[in-house]
């Protein structure tokens, strides 16, 4: 049996509950809702599936095919754009290969995260502090039975999230993000999904090939990530409910730039702060960029370019960006 292919969530629940740490809030209904989220995270990484989904943000709609399989070597994931010119992204554990529409191939290494992320007790308690988690009505998505989970923010610093999880596998079938006025920021929904069975694996790229490709791309070999607990950069007015989860020095732009990367989380949404020297000639232009739920804001602070990225409302992002200061090492 392939890991996770046909297992029932009851099994996951038993598995996960046995290792879970009691939460501050002992409400059994809430415990069950949080468990559903754990099941979803587990399912996303341990299930073999392939399907087509639609993504919509504003007037922009696109269709993509996603395939996820696991084997002894780990996780393999493929995202193919089905509209416009051909383009796709393939992930092999921590290596990401992008075939761009212009024929270019890019390879990136994912840093700062293990192959299998788990929801930590810290993250779960943050979730409960910042969101009211409610079990919604049962529904059907792409012909599959789904449970719904609603994450209602306790303030206006974050978005409302609604998720549909497949009742059998725990896979995320549909997700909608809304602002505080109930306007849809973006949504994502499977129109067709097959779980388990014979999924084509011919597209899987061997690690050896990826390593060779990485060596060929200038400077990639030099990419080194070091955990830097104290870079001296601080966010003075961190929005309520966000905690620092990570701080590191990492390379960007194929190793051409070394940046300080701070990561904050409220349990569901993340905010990244990147600080790099202007001497490294960043390609990013100062300003605000938004793509659905994702906001990016860049500005110059002294001789540095500060870039803040997060799936939070622009005001939350700007609060972070405006309070970043160098306090010295």
């Amino acid at each position, binding site marked *: 049996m392939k890991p996770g292919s046909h297992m029932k969530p009851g099994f996951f629940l038993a598995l996960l509950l046995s290792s879970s740490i009691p939460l501050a809030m002992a409400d059994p209904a809430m415990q069950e809702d949080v468990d559903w*989220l754990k099941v*979803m995270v587990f399912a*996303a*990484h341990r299930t073999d599936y392939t399907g087509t989904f639609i*993504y919509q*943000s*504003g007037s922009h709609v*696109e269709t*993509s095919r*996603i395939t*996820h399989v696991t084997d002894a070597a780990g996780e393999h*994931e493929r*995202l193919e*754009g089905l509209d*416009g010119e051909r*383009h796709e*992204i393939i992930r092999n554990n921590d290596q990401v290969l*992008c075939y761009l*529409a212009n024929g270019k191939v890019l390879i*990136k290494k*994912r840093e*700062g*995260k293990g192959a299998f*992320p788990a*929801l930590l007790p810290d993250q779960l308690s943050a979730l409960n502090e910042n969101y009211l988690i409610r079990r919604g009505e049962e529904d059907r998505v792409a012909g599959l039975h789904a449970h719904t989970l609603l994450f209602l923010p306790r303030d206006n610093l974050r978005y409302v999230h609604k*998720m549909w999880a497949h009742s059998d596998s725990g896979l*995320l079938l549909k*997700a909608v993000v809304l602002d505080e006025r109930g306007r849809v920021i973006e949504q994502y929904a499977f129109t067709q999904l097959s779980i388990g069975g014979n999924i084509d694996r011919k597209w899987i790229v061997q690690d050896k090939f990826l390593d060779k490709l990485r060596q060929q791309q200038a400077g990639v070999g030099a990419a080194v990530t070091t955990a830097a607990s104290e870079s001296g950069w601080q966010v*003075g*007015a961190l929005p309520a409910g966000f905690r620092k989860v990570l701080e590191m020095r990492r390379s*960007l732009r194929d190793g051409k730039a070394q940046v300080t990367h701070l990561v904050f*989380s409220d*349990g569901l*949404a*993340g905010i*990244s702060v*990147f600080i790099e020297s202007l001497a490294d000639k*960043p*390609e*990013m*232009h*100062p*300003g*605000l*960029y*938004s793509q*659905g*739920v*994702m906001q*990016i804001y860049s*500005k110059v*602070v002294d001789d540095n370019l500060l*870039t803040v*990225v*997060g*799936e939070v409302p*622009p*005001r939350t992002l*700007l609060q972070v960006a*405006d309070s970043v200061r160098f306090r010295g090492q």
Partner: protein
Amino acid sequence: MKERISTMMDGELFEDETEALLSRIKHHPEARQEWQTYHLIGDALRQPQHISRDISATLRERLQLEPTVLAPRRKISQKVRYFAMSAAASLMALALVIWMSAQIGAEPATQQMAVQQQAGAVQPAGLAARQGVDDYLMAHQEVSPSTDVQGAASYIHTVAAR
């Protein structure tokens, strides 16, 4: 020249005129510039995704100064925040219009439309600038909790995925 391009794009030129114009665009740098500007404006008015463009060094400096002027250090109220943001957006809108007029001369109707489009959003820029964004998006998605549930679907936000 601008009018000719616009007329051609509206399909109102005769075939031989169109060919002559296209050949001119091909061989004359100024004509090519006009052609690119025409499409840039079109893109600016149509794009659903927004990206700001580094319009001038002055704007960069002003953006850098602006939050300091508007935002108190601690306990920043939401109202101030909203104001700071809309101020930043309108500043960029203004700069875009100035930049456009420098590029294309006086074309009041187009500028007016650009300003209206600009009211709440920031303007699109070239693909190159957007690809610069991907590095940060991908780096963020590696570490963001939202990726845990969505998997590769979260790459949908990147330029590489479209």
